[in-house]
């Protein structure tokens, strides 16, 4: 069975994520309303304008069902604006809508469009081949809480990719560069969430956090 992964389709580069998910054999589902989240095993929040996306998430009551999806253990991946939307603190005081990552995020951290750039980035958990990373008016993580793993930093030490349990976020856009490893990581996590596996020798207790009453 293919893994159904939702892509928040309120605004932004959601079509590129949909295409990337198809390319790796997952089944993408565009989400504009809460009911579109039924039966999905993971979620991508794409790049776009975070101010627009935050307003639309609130307007269409998507925050609560996304928070519930996250607390069930389903993986969520945010790129660029998606990273901003998932952060607990937005530097400058904007109100967070999906405070799932215990990080502080700084919007437009590199400057304006003229400072947008591409680079080769080491992401050790993805192996030795660097990620070709496209940064567009990109945010950076300016502070992390104790439960957050830093997946990648720029040579100057600025944090541009993080993971906290089932939540992943990158400042850059794998979906613009033919890079599929983040999506495959997400799909693997989503498949494990959908079917934790009850094979021979496996200890028989539930692995879904929702079944622990959380």
């Amino acid at each position, binding site marked *: 069975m293919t893994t159904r992964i939702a892509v928040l*389709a*309120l*605004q*932004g*580069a*959601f*079509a*590129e994520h949909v295409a990337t998910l198809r390319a790796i054999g997952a089944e993408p589902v565009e989400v*504009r*309303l809460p009911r579109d989240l039924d039966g999905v095993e993971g979620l991508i929040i794409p*790049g*776009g*304008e975070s*101010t*627009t996306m935050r*307003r*639309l998430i609130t*307007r269409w009551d998507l925050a609560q069902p996304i928070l519930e999806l996250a607390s069930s253990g389903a993986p969520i991946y945010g790129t*660029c*604006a998606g990273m901003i939307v998932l952060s607990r603190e937005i530097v*400058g005081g904007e109100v967070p809508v999906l405070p799932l990552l215990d990080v502080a995020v700084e*919007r*437009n951290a590199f400057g*304006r*469009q*003229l*400072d*947008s*750039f*591409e*680079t*080769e980035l080491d992401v050790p958990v993805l192996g030795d081949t660097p990620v070709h990373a*496209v*940064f*567009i*008016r990109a945010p950076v993580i300016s502070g992390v809480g104790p439960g957050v793993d830093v997946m990648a930093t720029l040579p100057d030490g600025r944090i541009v990719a993080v993971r906290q349990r089932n939540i992943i976020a990158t400042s850059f*856009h794998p979906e*613009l*560069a033919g890079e599929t490893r983040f999506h495959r990581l997400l799909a693997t996590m989503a498949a494990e969430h959908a079917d934790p596996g009850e094979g021979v020798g496996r200890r028989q207790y539930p692995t879904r956090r929702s079944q622990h009453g959380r």
Partner: protein
Amino acid sequence: MTDTSTWATKKGLAQMLKGGVIMDVVTAEHARIAEDAGAVAVMALERVPSDIRAAGGVARMSDPSVIEGIMGAVSIPVMAKARIGHFVEAQILEALGVDYIDESEVLTPADERNHIDKHAFKVPFVCGCRNVGEALRRISEGAAMVRTKGEAGTGNIVEAVRQLRDVLAEIRRLGGMREDELFVAAKELGAPYELVKQVAAEGRLPVVNFVAGGISTPADAALVMQLGAEGVFVGSGIFKSEDPARMANAIVQATTHFTDAKILAEVSKGLGAPMRGIALEAIPDQERMAVRGW
């Protein structure tokens, strides 16, 4: 190795704007209203197109202090217009640090033969087009985003619909051609063969394509989105309506939920009067903006 202002970042910003509404604003106050309503970017200009049309005379790039005021007022991308072929206005806008330049037919053209060489700039450009040939000529000059022109400042969607349908029908026609027919198609379109071949293979333009010129209601926005636009520019339609903040917000909602008629009905309620429109036949040929550019 790090490269700034690459083709991927120029084209990529337009990809991030998809599914969104870019609003014309003339003051910092307008820009804040637009941002609060959910605009993905604002277009800074001295007068909205309907006022340019009413005033006549030569329309130019805005005063840099107005543009800087708008850049300081909002956190979303700020675009600004330069006259067709006026590469010095473009140099000034780049020096100000705007996020995108619109080489726009809404302003009075500065050059009757040549558009700006947009490859020479680090800032990305969006250009108007009426058909695939024009779109590909602009892209070959370096445009990282295109928009159909419509007929700006009229509040009349008819020209925008005609041009968008023309572009999409031509893309479908190219997709059905044999390789040897594409050479002639390129000649007839007046567009580079390599780009024509790419369009035929991919079934879409090589850059993001928005619709502009005539959108003045949520239904207008949803109409062009259903036809295949990737996002919309709204000029006079917002700040010439009775209640700009509500109209702006409603057009944003309609651009997201463009296929959901129930939501479209909901967001269209009680918006007050949209801008007053003009029938295309009432505009003399020499005052048509869509025919500027070649």
